[in-house]
């Protein structure tokens, strides 16, 4: 609780983190109100599929019916970016939740018990960390087939090892504290010690760090769907919308920026979403790193 107040105090002093928070709140509202802002057309079964207006390939400029215009294949950009916000939060939250659960379980087992168990778990993380993350994520995504779930699983697979390692390190440091020794002395079980004493003292910075990684996770997910892997065609996803626009960077002979909207609008959504998390993170990291906070 004292930590939280300390955090809030520094937080309020830093205008950048407040801007970050505002950006994230706006995106959260967009995601929550998606059905109101961009209502799904009558008779459409899955709201995450972007409605199309015809099948022509050339993107159409913004108009009254399509306020952000349409992209290749006449997918409505406005609908796509609004529902894409939901996709982004879904991917970000589920991945971070999953890596926290896996990281906490494996990391605390490795750190608390040490010895051979620790050695095995750490060698497994070494193997996963032996790949450039995007490459491994690409391989996992195509192995699982095209769906948003594949992207979520793929990013979880490449992210959990670093969490497990960080949590293990923190727990190793705490394990030797006197109060752990004391509870062991009065006969508390391993599970009770881990849950009641070890985790509460190590987990709080990790939760914050993890939530700030949502931006990075969404960026990776967008990169995968930009590459044409992962989501099915027409799924409301920012990365895929940029993929649709990639053939339209050269405009018409009279107007070189004729298709700017198809590229720029979904890109700005990703950019601001990720920046919101990074602005929040940049100051929080300084606050949480006591070596730097003193300066």
């Amino acid at each position, binding site marked *: 609780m004292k930590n939280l107040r300390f955090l809030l105090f520094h937080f309020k002093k830093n205008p*950048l983190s407040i801007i970050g928070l505002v950006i994230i709140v706006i995106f959260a509202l967009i995601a929550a109100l998606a059905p109101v802002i961009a209502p799904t057309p009558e008779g459409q079964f899955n709201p995450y599929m972007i409605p199309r207006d015809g099948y022509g390939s050339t993107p159409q400029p913004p108009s009254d019916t399509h306020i952000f215009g349409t992209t290749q294949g006449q997918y409505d950009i406005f609908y796509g970016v609004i529902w894409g916000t939901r996709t982004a939060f879904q991917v970000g939250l589920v991945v971070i939740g999953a890596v926290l659960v896996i990281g906490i379980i494996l990391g605390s087992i490795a750190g608390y018990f040490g010895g051979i168990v620790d050695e095995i778990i750490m*060698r*497994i993380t*070494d*193997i*996963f960390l*032996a*790949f*450039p*993350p*995007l*490459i*491994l994520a*690409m*391989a*996992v*995504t*195509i*192995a*699982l087939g095209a769906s948003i779930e594949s992207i979520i699983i793929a990013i979880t697979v490449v992210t959990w090892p670093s969490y497990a390692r960080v949590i293990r390190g923190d727990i190793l440091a705490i394990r030797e504290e006197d109060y752990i020794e004391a509870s062991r002395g009065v006969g508390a079980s391993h599970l009770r010690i881990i849950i009641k004493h070890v985790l509460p003292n190590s987990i709080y910075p990790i939760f914050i760090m993890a939530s700030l990684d949502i*931006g990075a996770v969404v*960026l990776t997910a*967008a*990169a995968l769907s*930009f*590459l*044409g*892997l992962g989501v099915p065609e027409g799924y409301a996803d920012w*990365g895929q919308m*940029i993929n649709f*626009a*990639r053939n339209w*960077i*050269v*405009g018409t002979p009279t107007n*070189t*920026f004729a298709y*700017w909207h198809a*590229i*720029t609008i*979904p*890109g700005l959504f*990703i*950019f601001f979403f*990720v*920046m919101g998390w*990074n*602005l929040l993170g*940049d100051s929080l990291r300084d606050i949480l*790193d006591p*070596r*730097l906070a003193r*300066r």
Partner: protein
Amino acid sequence: MEFRSYLIRRLFLLIPVLFGVTILIFGLLQLFPPYQRAMLYVTDPRQLSNIDEIIELYGLNAPVWQQYFTWLGQVFQGNLGWSKVVGMSVTDAIINFLPATLELAIFATPIIIMGGIWLGTKAAAHKDGLIDHTTRAGAIVGWSLPTFWFGLVLMMIFYGYFRGLLPPERLSTAMSVLVNSASFTRYTHLNFIDGILNWEWRVVFDALRHLVLPVVTLSVVNIAFIMRLMRSSMLESLGRGYVLTARAKGLPEKQVINKHARRNAMIPVLTVSGYLFAAIVNGVVITESIFNYKGLGWWAWRTAVQLDVSSILGFALFSGILFVLTNLVVDLLYAKFDPRVRLGGGVK
């Protein structure tokens, strides 16, 4: 003596990791049906018509552990299968596409490292000044930019608006004809270097023109990363006793920063070079796919999209092993040059 035993220990520890890497790749492979897995054993296009024979020959319906050893045997012989997208074996494809990617990395890596160190030093030396705030804002923006989108916007401006000023791909049509002609010797397959060696300045110029946007795209995000790291490490270094001593004995500020503080602050940058390597490989896939720059990343992207299993897994295996070796070299250098690293316990 101590270093040598550390080296031997590290090389020994490499074996389980490399085995683990092959097991992970093989595990992923099991998610594909046999007729796709068969592509990993093909060495010649004529075999493509007899996939059933290959399934039979390599026992692709046999128990998994048996298949693993058959596959590992093939890998040790350098046979990674057939890349149907480019119509050559995976090993040949890697050899074929590597120079283009190297050319990109040769330009981007020094820019990332030197640019990041330089900006980070400046920011720390002027903490809370204008430079610090500008670079901080720049880092946040750079760090948040989706690389793939940034590259497209650059191309929209420098290729679309300026009518082909900085084009995609590796060379213009005329120059690639020249490069492939009999009078042009391809010493390294790096267009830039071959151009110089052949005294063909048109090739050099054309290669550079095609490299500008990919290099910028690849560098921006990573410069932001190195810069932030360098800034915090530099701040820590500036607060140390040796900096105080240097200042107290009246050294000029420039010398204090560049010699005493910066040299010590660069160690964390060295330790993340493994991470940087991974970031560049990741970036290469995206950058090359945007600019249709036909290197390893482009190949990995095309093969992934077309479910060319043998290629994408071959590439994953190749980049994984390369990454493990890079990390090993970094750790060894670190141990060799930083006397504070205790070799015995492996604690850093």
